[in-house]
């Protein structure tokens, strides 16, 4: 079954695409339920709605906006081809176009394209493509930066204390990880966090939290990987 509400990470924040044919009342309750299920992920997030050709009157859009605001979700823009919806969007002071809002973070968005040699099963590549959505950040994330995406996050650089990454998928840091990171923030317990030097202020996977023990500051950095096993966050050497 095709989802009537779909989430995707984009430069400007989180793009939520709503099936233009689905019933508006259903859409509304489905959307709010899904946000409530992943409240930690959505709190403070910037989202963009793609409504397609659906005509939405101002009161309906305002109702949705209020529900989002109650949940501390910032609706920045509504994309639509319907004149009615565009009018309502303007009246509510929202952007009609992504160019009107800045990118959420300095990130590179990759559209995965993997070619399948005919001898490989199709299924395998489907998984890779679906599972590969992520963003690449090619700089050190300094204090105060927050990266939030439903996909994976790869940082080539450090994640400094005071910086935060909240990812629906995995987090890989090619550098020192000392900020706050949350992998599998939409509930996936199979997500992992890897870093060349894993010393986060706080590490979360799915709904589990682990606070770094005050280790010897002068220990030799070594690559580690954190994951969930038997309901607990474990860290092990990242050499396989």
């Amino acid at each position, binding site marked *: 079954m095709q989802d009537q509400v779909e989430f995707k990470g984009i430069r400007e924040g989180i793009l939520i695409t709503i099936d233009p044919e689905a019933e508006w009342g259903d859409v509304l309750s489905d959307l709010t339920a899904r946000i409530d299920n992943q409240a930690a992920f959505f709190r403070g997030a910037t989202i963009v709605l793609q409504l397609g050709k659906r005509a939405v009157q101002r009161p309906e859009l305002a109702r949705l906006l209020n529900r989002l605001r109650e949940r501390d979700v910032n609706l920045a823009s509504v994309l639509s081809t319907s004149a009615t919806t565009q009018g309502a969007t303007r009246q509510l002071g929202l952007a009609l176009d992504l160019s009107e809002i800045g990118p959420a973070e300095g990130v590179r968005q990759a559209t995965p394209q993997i070619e399948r040699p005919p001898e490989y099963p199709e299924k395998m590549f489907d998984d890779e493509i679906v599972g590969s959505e992520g963003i690449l950040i090619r700089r050190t994330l300094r204090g105060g930066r927050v990266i939030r995406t439903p996909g994976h996050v790869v940082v080539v650089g450090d994640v400094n204390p005071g910086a935060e990454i909240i990812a629906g998928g995995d987090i890989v840091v090619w550098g020192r990880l000392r900020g706050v990171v949350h992998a599998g923030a939409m509930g996936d317990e199979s997500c992992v966090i890897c870093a060349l030097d894993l010393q986060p202020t706080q590490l979360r996977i799915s709904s589990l939290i682990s606070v770094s023990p005050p280790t*010897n500051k002068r220990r030799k950095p070594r690559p580690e990987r954190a994951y969930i096993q038997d309901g607990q966050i474990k860290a092990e050497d990242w050499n396989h």
Partner: protein
Amino acid sequence: MSGRVITVTSGKGGVGKTTTTANLAMALASLEKRIIAIDADIGLRNLDLVMGLENRIVYDLVDVVEGRCTLRQAMVKHKGYPYLYLIPASQTRDKTAITPQNMRAVAMELKDSYDFILVDSPAGIEWGFKNAIAPADEVLIVTNPDVSAVRDADRIIGLIETHDVPIPVRLVINRLKSGMVRKGEMLSVDDIIGLLSIRLVGVIPEDENVLRSSNQGVAVAGPAGQAFLNLARRLDGEQVPFQSLEITSLMDRFRRLFNNR
């Protein structure tokens, strides 16, 4: 040749931006450079005090921007050096009296006649910071060897790095007490560089002469004075080794050797 605009900033307040701007200005002037120091801390001016020029002020930066005087009229000449001037901040107006465009225009007008234009910024990352950073060709981040000052420096560096036009940033560590670092009560130079990963250009020791000379409005002498002179030379392109730093990091290395065994 065109002058360089160097903005001195920090994020956290009270770490020594004004002290650094004033002493750097005087040190560069003693190297016979042509210097203008601009106080962009509108409403809380004190660069004039630390440079000993308070009693000579007639006009200020806001007067220039609002057209009550020419730039030339607002420039206060320093008594001790032939080519050192200050453009003071206004004491009464609030910081919104000036915009980033104003700052760029003022800097443009000065660039041809001066070697260095030093801009002292207010604490924080708001309006005043944006003004101070607007004309900058280079930025000096001043920090102290404590966790909260370094954390704020990190944020500021992040802001500058992701600015429309990234500006080269270098670091000045102020108030280093080598004794405390050795005992592990303070971050070491290596700790700070490890975290911020930007280039170091000055290490200024904690020095009680600083307070005294600031009160008298003269350049600091002693160890801090030497460190400011070294900073000035490095900014001027000279290779000057880090003396006090070498000592502390050597100590650090020994300590690490023992701790790891």
